[in-house]
């Protein structure tokens, strides 16, 4: 699969700046309903999100904690699945125009398979979505997807349990950035950051040339500011989703997170 320079510029890499960490904001597609989630996407963009990770609601969210799992359940009840999520991303991106932050779909594997990997990749590409994160598709199991997903940045995850060999493999197969899971366990807010997180990121960096973004268990401005000192990106999910019913609150919260990212290395 050839990649070329224009892929990189158009892809998720655009969300990263050399002098500070990128703020990656996770939102659940279709939660609490289509219109509100569209408004929340715009609110996150206005608030200063550098990349938006759009969650696709799925019935067995193995990697997600209670906040995101519950939002997924509600969004599914509102009729949302992969198809609707792609349409939502497309609508957001076309409304927000060329300055919109790049969007990655956070999507479990089976909905992609159900749509057909090739057709799913094509729909996602056509919607203008820059990449995908598939939490239950480790790099060793990704060949069928990667063979049809050219032009999309497929982001793989590393975890504190990953061996050096696996970190290297993730670094080689990932595009856009590498998603570093801060702690063992599922997504969700935690009172404290995992200890030795900075060391973990350093360890990942020694195997990975791409930007390293940290997620899982990162919530408020203080934690975001701390992670932004040593990582290339910070993902905030559950803490945003919890506010997703009120787009104005999302905007205010993302603005605070964005300030924290900007202040971290000044």
């Amino acid at each position, binding site marked *: 699969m050839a990649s070329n320079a224009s892929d990189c510029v158009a892809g998720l890499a655009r969300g990263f700046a050399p002098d500070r960490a990128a703020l990656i904001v996770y939102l659940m597609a279709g939660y609490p309903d289509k219109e509100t989630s569209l408004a929340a996407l715009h609110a996150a963009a206005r608030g200063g999100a550098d990349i938006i990770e759009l969650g696709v609601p*799925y*019935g*067995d969210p*193995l*990697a997600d904690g209670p906040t995101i*799992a519950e939002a997924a359940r509600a969004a*599914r009840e509102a009729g949302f*699945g*992969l*198809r609707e999520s792609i349409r939502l991303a497309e609508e957001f991106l076309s409304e927000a125009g060329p300055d919109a932050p790049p969007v990655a779909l956070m999507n479990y*594997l*089976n*909905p*992609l*398979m*159900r*749509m057909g990997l090739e057709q799913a990749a094509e729909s996602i590409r056509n919607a203008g979505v820059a990449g995908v994160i598939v*939490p*239950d*598709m*480790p790099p*060793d*199991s990704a060949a069928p997807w990667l063979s049809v997903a050219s032009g999309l940045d497929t982001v*793989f*995850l*590393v*975890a*504190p*349990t*990953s*061996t050096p060999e*696996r970190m290297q493999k*993730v670094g080689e197969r990932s595009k856009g950035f590498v998603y570093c*899971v801060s702690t*063992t*366990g*599922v997504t969700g807010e935690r009172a404290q950051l995992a200890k030795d997180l900075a060391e973990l990121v350093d360890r990942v960096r020694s195997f990975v040339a791409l930007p390293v973004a940290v997620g899982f268990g990162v919530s408020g401005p203080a934690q975001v500011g701390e992670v932004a000192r040593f990582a290339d990106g910070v993902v905030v999910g559950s803490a945003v989703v919890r506010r997703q019913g009120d787009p104005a609150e999302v905007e205010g919260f993302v603005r605070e997170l964005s300030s924290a990212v900007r202040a971290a290395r000044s």
Partner: protein
Amino acid sequence: MSDVFLPSAEMAYSSPDAQGFFGPYGGTFVPETVVPALSELAEAFCETLDDPAFAAEYGTLLQDYVGRPTPLFSAERLAEAVGADRVYLKREDLDHTGAHKINNTLGQVLLARRMGKRRVIAETGAGQHGVATATAAALLGLECAVFMGTEDMRRQSLNVYKMRLLGAEVVPVADGTGTLADAVTATLRHWVERVEDTFYVLGSAVGPHPYPVMVREFQKVIGEETLVQLQGRAERIPDAVVACVGGGSNAIGMFYPFLRDLPPEKRPLLVGAEAAGLGLDSDKHGASLAKGSPGVLHGFYSYLLQDDAGNPLEAYSISAGLDYPGVGPEHSHLKDEGLVRYEPVTDTEALEAFALLTRTEGIIPAIESSHALALLPHLAAELGPGALIVVNLSGRGDKDMDIVREGGLGGE
């Protein structure tokens, strides 16, 4: 009749490849956090296969603790009632704890101890696997937590009590429908969190690699003994061998040696009984092979009951051990290859078979196993006079008394 029982190279039924794929099915589709643990597990499991000390310890436990070999019982009155010449029951209901599950949990908990893990976790549906895991953990001195759906806890309160008596913590899972699939998800999530000190004892031939092949290896003793016992009484190779299929561990344990050791033309008709619940035309069944389509759930690719958006559907069966929306990947492969035939059996048919065995032989079977028994009259008719059929009686029915009573049997 002797040499046909001996394996030879050209007949070899293919095992999974190094990545755990049976044809296109199986694999490892899980969060990165547990991938290293699965690799470590696969490695440790492979080492045990070549380790005579492990085999000796496991073998001794199977014999002296589980009570193996279990009898192969000629059920003459049942045979007459279903119109077969001979019906043999492989008596896994006589295993310690009352079902085949213990064969696997002893193997896995031994492996956990060998890997230096001090804590095991398990999911359970009917509670049989939970009880078998708690039992093995008690025997080998490991800490144990069992995740169980709240609906299943209600249906199987006696097993909940047993697990607690055995020293296990029973963790209620209220998510979703509070049944087996939810318990598997909760156990996987917990494992992601505690992967460093915890061993996940998976109860069926499902899950990411190496679980399906590992569970098969620990259950294949069922089929191996059956072959030896048939040979011991100078029986011919049966016309059909039947087992029920939820995730499919007792079925693969019975079928695999027949597939491995016999050339295709000598193999019996292998038949798996799937839960048809209230009927395949209702949406209340657990027949993933008959009505599902391939997809990924709980870390592996296999036939799956799913909606148009790829979300897993709720499975239903009167038996808590069969209401799983997926099925072991090897069964998906065996179905596609035409090596095993899978037949749906409704709740009602299973209850009728339950009553029939109870009254003709004085054996009270698990409702799961009753699904396999329910195919006997059809198979006898299909195979014609002289039919010789083996049924894997995977468990006993004590746990099902309340459900059977609710179903209206034996009340008159």
